[in-house]
C-alpha cells in the first residue's frame, strides 16, 4: 500500500482524508509539522500532502524544511483560493509535484496520489536498478582481476577459470 502523509491544521480535514483513503492507502495524518517530520522518519512515506495555509508555517515552507532530509517523497500542496502566487513559485522551484485545490475530489485526489506514488516507485526502481548494476559491475571487475592474477601466476585450474568466466557472463547478461 502506498504510504501517504497528510499535514493540515484543520483536524476535520485529516479525519475526512483518512476516512476517504484508509482503504486504499496507508494514511498518516497530523496537524503538527514536527510530528510530520517524525512520521517521515518512521514510515516509508511515498507521497506528502500539506495544506498551504497553516498558522505556524505554510505548506511551501514545510516542503522547503524537509527537502534536504527527505528529497524522495513526492510532494503535493492543498490550497484554497489565495496564495496562488506562492504555489506558482513553489512549482517553478520544483518543490512540489502537484497542487490540489480544496474542496478536493476524492477520485481525482486518489488518482493523483497513485500517480505520484507510481512516480516515486519508478524513481525508486530506477535507482535500485542502477545500484544493482553498479554492484554487478563491481563483482565482475573483482572476478576479472582474479582471472588476470590467476592466469599470470598459472595457479588456477581450467575448470575454475571456466566457472568464473561463466559467472561474468551471467553478471553482464
Amino acid at each position, binding site marked *: 500500500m502506498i504510504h501517504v502523509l497528510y499535514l493540515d491544521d484543520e483536524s*476535520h480535514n485529516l*479525519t*475526512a482524508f483518512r*476516512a476517504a483513503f484508509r482503504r486504499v492507502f496507508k494514511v498518516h495524518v497530523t496537524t503538527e509539522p514536527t510530528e510530520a517530520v517524525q512520521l517521515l522518519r518512521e514510515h516509508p512515506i511515498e507521497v506528502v500532502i500539506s495544506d498551504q495555509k497553516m498558522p505556524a508555517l505554510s505548506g511551501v515552507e514545510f516542503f522547503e524544511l524537509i527537502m534536504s532530509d527527505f528529497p524522495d517523497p513526492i510532494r503535493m500542496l492543498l490550497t484554497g483560493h*489565495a496564495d496562488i502566487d506562492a504555489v506558482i513559485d513553489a512549482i517553478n522551484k520544483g518543490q512540489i509535484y502537484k497542487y490540489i485545490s*480544496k*474542496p478536493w475530489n476524492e477520485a481525482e485526489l486518489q488518482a493523483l496520489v497513485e500517480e505520484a506514488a507510481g512516480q516515486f516507485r519508478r524513481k525508486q526502481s530506477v535507482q535500485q536498478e542502477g545500484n544493482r548494476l553498479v554492484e554487478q559491475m563491481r563483482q565482475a571487475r573483482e572476478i576479472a582481476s582474479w582471472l588476470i592474477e590467476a592466469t599470470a601466476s598459472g595457479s588456477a585450474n581450467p575448470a575454475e577459470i571456466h566457472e568464473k568466466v561463466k559467472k561474468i557472463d551471467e553478471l553482464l547478461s
Partner: protein
Amino acid sequence: MRERRHASSRLPWRWWLICLAALALALPSHAQQYIGRRMQLLPDSMVPRMSVTEQIVDLLGWQPIEVDVPNLGVTEEVYWLRLTLDPAMEAGALLEVQNATIDELSCFIICDGEVITAYGDGETHRSGQESRLGTYPTFAIPLATECTDFEVLLRVESGKPLLLPIRLAGHKEVIDDAHVRDVFFAAYFGIIFVMLLYNLFLFFSVGDRNYLWYAFYIITVGGAQLVLNGYSELLGVEQWPWLELRVVHLFGVLSGVATIIFARDFLDLPKRVPWLNTVMYVYMGLYAVAMLFTLLGLLTWAYNLINFCALAIFLLIPGAVLSLRQGFRPAGYFLLAWTFFIAAVVVFVLKDSSIIPFNQWTFFALPVGNAVEVVLLSLALASRINELKQESARARERQLQLARQNERIVKDQNRLLEDRVQERTLKLTETNRDLEGALNELRTAQQQLVQQEKLASIGQLTAGIAHELNNPINFVSSSSASLKRDFDDVEEVLKLVLALDPESQELQQEVRALQERMEELDLAFTQDEIVQLLKGIEDGAGRTAEIVKGLRIFGRVDGDAFAPAQLNELLESTLVILRSSLRDQVAIDLELAEDLPPVRCQAGRLNQVFMNMITNAAHATMARADLAPEDRLIYISSRVEGKRVIIRIEDNGAGMSDEVRSQIFDPFFTTKEVGEGTGLGLSIVMGILSDHEAEVDVTSQLGKGTAFTLTFKA
C-alpha cells in the same frame, strides 16, 4: 498768464509818476541861503592847549570854506568855525545850524575880541542857554552896534557826520521853516505811523510774519528819521545822555538789520537768490560789529561801518530783479519802492557831498523817498499776499483741474475696468462652465473610484468567504462520502447479522465468520470514525451557517437604507469575513457591551467602515517590525455612554505621525506603496461616518499604536 504779467509790469510806471508828482508837491517853494563860503575852519588840533576862546579867533591857520554847506564828514576831530558878521546888518538875526545830530556844539559871540554871549548845544553838552528854535540849534545874534569886529565862533564835535548847513535868518523865517519842517515830518511820521499800524493790524489778522518784519522795519526806519532830524526829544532819550549819544547809531543798526530781515523774507532770498542771502548774512555780521562799536563808544567807527553797510540796500536791487525774473511778481513792487528809496538816498548822499546843492528839495528827498518807499512796500506786501493768495488759488485751481482730470481718468478707468470685469466675468463664466464639466468628470471618476474601492472590498470579502468556506465544505463533502462507505460496511455486517439463523446449527460458525468479517472491516475503527465524521459534518455545517449568517449581515441588501441595527452584530459579522485573513496574522480581542442599544444606520456601509478600519489596524500591526506575530493585537470594544454608542478599534501597530494623522481622511492619501492602496479607504469611511453623524476621534503614537473611537447616536 502772459497777459496778466504784462499788465502788472505796466503798473509800477504809473506809480512812479504818481510818486514823483507827490514829491514835487511836497517841496517847499523857497530856497534857503547857506553861508558856508563866509566862514573859516580850524581844526581843534591846531589850537594850542589851554587857549582862551578869545585867543582862538585870532589864531593863524583859519582856512576859508569853499562851499555853501561844509561837510566835515564823520571824524573824531573837533572843529572851530569862524564867521565874521556885519554888526549893522546882522545883529539881531538868528544863526541856525541845520544839523540836529551834533554831539557838542558851542557858539561864542565875540565883540572886539571879547565873548559877549556863549551858547551850548549838543546831545550831550547842554551848557548855556536854551538854544533851539524848532529842531535845529539856533543862536540869537545880540545887538552890537558899537562893535567893529563882530564875530561868531562855533565849536563842533560829533560822532556823526559833521554836515553843517548854517544860515543867518530872521526869527520869523526860522520859525516858518521850522513849521514847514514840522508839518512835513508830521506828515511823514503820520504816514509811517499809519503804515506801522496798518501792517501790525495785517500781521495780527493775517498772521504772515512778513508784516511783523515790515512793522519792525517801519519803526526802525521812522525812528532813524526821527533822530536824524532832531526829533529825538519825542523819544525822551535826552534823559539818558549815554543813550542819546548813540541813538542815531542804534537806529542805524536796527533799521539796517530790519531792512535785511524784511527784504530777505519778502524776496524769499534763501530760496530764490541764495548767494545774496549769504551776502546778507555777512552784512548782518557787519551790523553786529557796528552794534558792538556803538556800545563800546567807538562811535565814529560805528557810524562809518553803518554807512558802509548801507550799501547793502543797493544789493537788494539785483536781488529783486532776479526774484522778479523768477516770476515772483511782488518783487516788482519791491524793486520800485527800493529804487525810490535808493534815489532818495543817492540825492541825500550827493547833497551831503556837496555835489548837488543843499536845499529843501534835496533835504526832504530822503524822508519823502522813504515815505513813498514805505507806502510802496506796504503795497508790495499786499501784492505779495495777493500773489500768494492767487498762487494758492491757482494751486487750488490746478488741484481742482487735476482732480477733475483724475476724476475723468478714474471714470475712464472705471469704464475700462467695467469692460474688463465684464470680459473677465464672461471668461470666468466660461471657465466656470469648463470647471463644472471637469468637476463632473472628477465626480464621475471619484464615484468610479469609490465603486472600485467597494468592489475591492467585495473582492476581499469574497476571498475571505471562499477561504472560510473552503475547509468546512471540503471536510463535509469528503466526510459524507466516507460516511457512506462506512455505512456500507456497517450495512454489510448488519445484513450478515440479520441473516443469522438462531435455529441453525452452524450458528457458531456463522458468528465466527461474522466476527472475522467485522475484524476484516475494522468495524471498531469504523464506529469511531463515524462519530468523528459526524462531528466534522456537524461542525462544518455550523461553521458554514455562521459564515452565511455573517455574510447576510455583512452584505445586507438593505445596506443603503437607514434601519436600526446592532453594531455588535455588524462587528462580529465583519470579523467573520476577516477571520481567515487575520486569524494567523493578528490576535483580535473583542469586548462588546451586552446592553448595546440599536443604532439607526446603513448596516452594509458601516460594515465597510469596520472592515476598513480593522484591516488597517491589522496592517499597522504587521508594519511594526519590532513586534512578534504572536504579539500583534487588535482590541475592539463597544460600550454605551448615555445615549451614545461608542466603538473603539485599537491596535498596537506602527502608529503614525501627527502629519500623517492629519491627512488620513484625505482622498488619495496613502502611506502604502504605489498600487497597493487607492488612498480612498478612509476618505470613504469618513463620508459614510459623516452620513451617520458619527464623531471620529483618532489618537496615535508613532511606534505604539493607533486608536479610532467612533461615537454614534443611539
